[in-house]
C-alpha cells in the first residue's frame, strides 16, 4: 500500500524567511509525484509534477525536488500570499491500478 507522509504538519514563517516542506513516500513503481496548494474553502491547485529522481521544477518562489524516497518543496523569501496548505500526492502502479495517494498536507502561515 502506498504511503505519503508530510512534515511538518504546520509551519509559521516570517516574510522573507526561506524554508522547506518535506514529503516522504513509499510506493511501488512511482509514475508521478504532485504538489498542490490548497487555500481555505477551495480545491487544490496544481503546482508541479515530478516523474524521476533528480528532477527539479521551479515556479516563482517555489522549487520542488525529488529523490527516490522523498520530495522537498523549497520556499524562497516567502510572502504572506504564500500562506496555504501544501499537499503532496503520489501516483503509482499498484495492483494494476493507478490510485493517487495524498498526504495530510503542511499548513504554512507567512507573517508580514
Amino acid at each position, binding site marked *: 500500500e502506498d504511503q505519503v507522509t508530510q512534515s511538518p504538519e504546520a509551519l509559521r514563517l516570517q516574510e522573507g524567511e526561506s524554508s522547506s516542506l518535506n514529503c516522504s513516500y513509499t510506493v511501488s513503481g512511482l509514475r508521478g509525484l504532485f504538489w498542490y496548494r490548497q487555500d481555505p474553502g477551495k480545491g487544490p491547485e496544481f503546482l508541479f*509534477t515530478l516523474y524521476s529522481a533528480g528532477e527539479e521544477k521551479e515556479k516563482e518562489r517555489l522549487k520542488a525536488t525529488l529523490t527516490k524516497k522523498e520530495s522537498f518543496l523549497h520556499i524562497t523569501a516567502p510572502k504572506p500570499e504564500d500562506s496555504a496548505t501544501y499537499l503532496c500526492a503520489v501516483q503509482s502502479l499498484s495492483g494494476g491500478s493507478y490510485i493517487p495517494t495524498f498526504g495530510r498536507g503542511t499548513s504554512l502561515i507567512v507573517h508580514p
Partner: protein
Amino acid sequence: DAGVTQSPTHLIKTRGQQVTLRCSPKSGHDTVSWYQQALGQGPQFIFQYYEEEERQRGNFPDRFSGHQFPNYSSELNVNALLLGDSALYLCASSLFGQGSNQPQHFGDGTRLSIL
C-alpha cells in the same frame, strides 16, 4: 476557459438520507475523479470515471456510486448517509483517461454536513 465546476457548494442532510453531487470537468478533459476530504486530512480517492465507466476505485463502500455522462460530466451518489460522511467532496478532471499521470484540476468542492 471554464475550470471544474461543482454543485451544490454546501449541503445539509440527515443520517440515512441519500445525496447526489454534480461535477462538470474542465473543458477538453475526459476523465473525472472524486475525492473525500475530511477536516485536516488530505483528499482520499473514491473512484474515477472514463468513457462513462468506473475505471478505478478506492477503499470506499458500495454506498458510494457514480456516473459519467456522454458530455464527460459526472455525479457522485451516496446512500444511507452516516455522520462520518461529513466532509468536503472534491471533483477533479484530467486528460487521457485511465492510467494517466497527468496533473488533475480540482473544483472547489461540495461541503456535505450530516446531522
